[in-house]
């Protein structure tokens, strides 16, 4: 079994400044909410969209004397994610307190893992088109608590706090600065999201904020990045700025592009890029400073004395590893080798585990390419029109397989098949029975086709002469015959008979 298809690395994005060319260097911290029903250190629900402050345990509200107790399920999801990213799992990890004051942080500290994260180094292969991919190194994944939500626009004088999200488990997935352009950055998040959804450890819902990214951007002259990779010395790279809390692929790209150009303009102007945290304003399409390095919080990290170090057993990790599903890279490679699909089609089909599963069911015992064609072009196209997910498809894999079977057997033509698909999509039913009941079966009886061809030839002598001079016009006869037979004649047979009768 192939782990992944072979690929070559893409070129870094180059932006031409007023004076010279620049490359981009991007690293990301993705916060992925663990798909868990309860919070990281309390039994409170994580249900999205509940009444404000209804999913709050005493410990979430930091009531005096309350203590955190680790949710084992969340630990398992972090380990599972680590395994999915081919990362090192740390059997010993520990929780630290990150101290800062904010009304939506009731404890006055966030419980996180600074010194000993649960997951170490791994990788993500970011697809950038057939045969091209970027290998992005993962530095670490740690577990931490989410903060609550401050609401400042409900009242002119007061702010409100909703603690429903307080204490929800997040996995912070930290990449190395291996991403080399805005498109790659978006593709990285897309791929990460895809893997997390395959693993089932995060639902990837960016709209609800369940997946969001902090993006570190710097610029360098061509060649400097390679020096950094050779030496590990960040001195070869430019000063970075961090753009916080991005939850849209489009905004990630726009923000990086804007930020890179801002930094290039500064440097070419003889000024310095200042290390700082910035926010992207999608209305204005620009990033602006949130706080400088000097204003940065001193988080006073120290080991949380309320929690013992997290020690897990290799056997337990192995048990989780045994339940991992086939991941996107493997699945894609298999679709290409097993079904002879193009990489592009394999990509489309494996984007979601559910569509891949649907395809496999259709392709089972049938022609893989034909199955792929029908799933991608007909089914996906139709679903997209109505904004339906594959899980909501009115056509089941068995029904679609039935349609493909009818084509393969020569019972219906491709054109009739499309009509049949529409009937099945809107009305349901067994495709074979529909074909039977509605007389949609194509005519393969050559005698009947010959008669129809003779009739058309006899009725159109002028066209016959023209076609003899220009064989391309034979298609007109085929069209007439198809029309006369209500589209049910086997087009291949019609073609052959028309050619023979016209003596072409």
């Amino acid at each position: 079994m192939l782990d992944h298809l072979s690929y070559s690395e893409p070129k870094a994005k180059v932006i031409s400044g007023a004076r010279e060319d620049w490359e981009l260097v991007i690293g990301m911290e993705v916060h992925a909410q663990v798909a868990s029903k309860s919070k990281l250190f309390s039994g409170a629900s994580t249900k999205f969209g509940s009444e404000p402050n209804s999913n709050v345990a005493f410990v979430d509200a930091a009531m005096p004397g309350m203590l955190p107790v680790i949710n084992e399920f969340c630990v398992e999801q972090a380990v599972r994610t680590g395994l999915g990213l081919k990362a090192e799992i740390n059997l010993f990890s520990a929780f630290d307190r990150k101290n800062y004051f904010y009304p939506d942080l009731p404890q006055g500290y966030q419980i996180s893992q600074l010194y000993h994260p649960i997951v170490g180094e791994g990788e993500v292969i970011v697809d950038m088109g057939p045969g091209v991919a970027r290998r992005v190194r993962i530095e670490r994944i740690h577990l931490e608590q989410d903060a609550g939500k401050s609401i400042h626009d409900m009242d002119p004088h007061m702010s409100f706090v909703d603690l429903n999200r307080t204490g929800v488990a997040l996995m912070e997935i930290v990449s190395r600065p291996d991403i080399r352009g805005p498109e790659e950055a978006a593709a990285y998040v897309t791929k990460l999201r895809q893997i997390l959804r395959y693993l089932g450890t995060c639902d990837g819902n960016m709209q609800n904020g369940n997946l969001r990214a902090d993006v570190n951007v710097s610029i360098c002259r061509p060649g400097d990045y390679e020096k950094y990779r050779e030496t590990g010395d960040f001195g070869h790279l430019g000063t970075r700025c961090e753009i916080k809390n991005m939850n849209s692929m489009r905004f990630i790209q726009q923000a990086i592009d804007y930020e890179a150009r801002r930094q290039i303009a500064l440097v070419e102007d003889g000024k310095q890029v200042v290390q700082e945290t910035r926010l992207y304003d999608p209305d204005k399409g620009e990033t602006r400073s949130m706080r400088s390095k000097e204003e940065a919080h001193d988080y006073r990290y120290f080991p949380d004395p309320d929690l013992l170090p997290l020690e897990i057993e290799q056997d337990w990790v192995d048990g989780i590893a045994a339940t991992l599903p086939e991941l996107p890279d493997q699945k894609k490679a298999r679709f290409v080798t097993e079904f002879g699909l193009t990489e592009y089609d394999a990509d489309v089909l494996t984007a979601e585990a559910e569509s891949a599963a649907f395809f496999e069911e259709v392709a089972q015992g049938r022609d893989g390419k034909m199955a792929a064609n029908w799933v991608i072009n007909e089914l996906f196209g139709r679903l997209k029109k109505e904004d339906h997910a594959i899980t909501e498809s009115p056509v089941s894999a068995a029904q679609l397989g039935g349609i493909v079977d009818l084509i393969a057997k020569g019972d219906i033509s491709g054109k009739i098949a499309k009509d049949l698909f529409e009937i099945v999509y809107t009305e349901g039913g067994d495709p074979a029975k529909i074909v039977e009941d509605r007389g949609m079966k194509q005519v393969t009886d050559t005698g009947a086709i010959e008669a129809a061809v003779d009739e058309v030839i006899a009725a159109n002598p002028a066209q016959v002469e023209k076609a003899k001079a220009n064989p391309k016009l034979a298609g007109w006869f085929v069209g007439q015959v198809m029309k006369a037979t209500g589209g049910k004649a086997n087009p291949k047979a019609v073609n052959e008979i028309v050619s023979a009768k016209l003596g072409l």
Partner: protein
Amino acid sequence: MADVNSLTIADARDALRKGDLTATELTDACLGQVEAAGALNAFVHNTPDLARDQAKAADERIKAGDAPSMCGIPLGIKDLFCTKGVPSQAASNILDGFRPEYESTVSQKLLDAGSVMLGKLNMDEFAMGSSNETSTYGNAVNPWRRQGDAAQLTPGGSSGGSAAAVAADLCLAATGTDTGGSIRQPAAFTGIVGVKPTYGRCSRWGIVAFASSLDQAGPMTKTVRDAAIMLEAMCGHDPKDSTSADLPVPDFEAALTGDIKGKTIGIPAEYRMDGMPAEIEKLWADGTAMLKDAGAKIVDISLPHTKYALPAYYVIAPAEASSNLARYDGVRYGRRAKLAQGDGVTEMYEKTRAEGFGKEVQRRVMVGTYVLSAGFYDAYYNRARKVRALIKKDFDDAFASGVDAILTPATPSAAFGLGEMAAADPVQMYLNDVFTVTVNLAGLPGVAVPTGLDAQGLPLGLQLIGRPWEEADLLNTAYALESAAGFVSKPARWW
């Protein structure tokens, strides 16, 4: 029965079971004493109605023959314990009006065993102090006075209210908490017994946190036997506290045979401090002789890192406290300062915390913030953690060499006068903990036992330190010491 409030838990238990006494009578007697002892300022919130209801329920249990040892025993609960529906303020202004909707695990266990809660006891604010003078309620007062001197003395701290209440027979026993000596020092100052169990023996759930890696709840009682009975009811594994140990609870009382023949008692050279009062020195020597007479083997031992314990403690405890106390921000409960027009969230924090926290708490929050800050973390906090590991190793080595318990003074002096330290450097006050902090840093069990009076008639105590999880053995040694010392003095009533 007369003066039933002065009974021990063991005697009251026997009388209750025999029917010579009812829990209601006992509770009423205590409530009367509490009412009359306002001058001691030991209780800061009384719960007489609750107490009478609980006493009634206890009487029914006793009648039904379902009576654990603590059933019907009136207790005082330190204000650091969250008690459901009852003010729980850690003696701080910042928790003004706070009534928890939950009951701490330890107080719940005591209630489940049938104990009666008379009310909440005074303490130093957030358990930070050694004299009970940092309380928002004003200090509790030691029932003991120097002979022929009406000067008011400290009951010690932080569990000063607990110590005063037990010593003055307002209740039969009380809960305390001990982060650096807060049970043992006040116990020694008031002539009672105080136990700091092994870290993890009692659940911390529902106890307002001071320094999470050091805090432990424990009993403060009139006798070692009472401490054994009460500790058994308080402790045990609690899944709600990740640092609570999943170990069986032994029958501590059954271990009290008084037989310590063949036990090895270590006398640590480093606890012989320069300028130690002769009386303390003599007390220690007398205690050593008593244990020897009881059949123990006495050995000189060395705990070489002792002198670094106090500085390490005063880095670690404030560091944890600075983080633990961040939640008192005026947002969700307790006090919020009145804000001026235009004040924002920063002003809310600053004003609320400036007026809600007393000076000593503010000092420790600032020290703790400083030692954790970037650039100082390694020099202070990390170094203190390393020292802590060395201190623990000192004890491990001593126990590995065959020592069963270590005998030291509990405090460097007898109770001092209230206000006496007001002008002193805060470090002078911190020196009160010099014999006790090592035990917290190493997570060990320790017990203070009253063994004598000083020349002015004030009680003095010795401390025994045991192996982790071997409270039963430690209490038995303490029992032997108590029996030999025969300390029976009581403060003359003036309140």
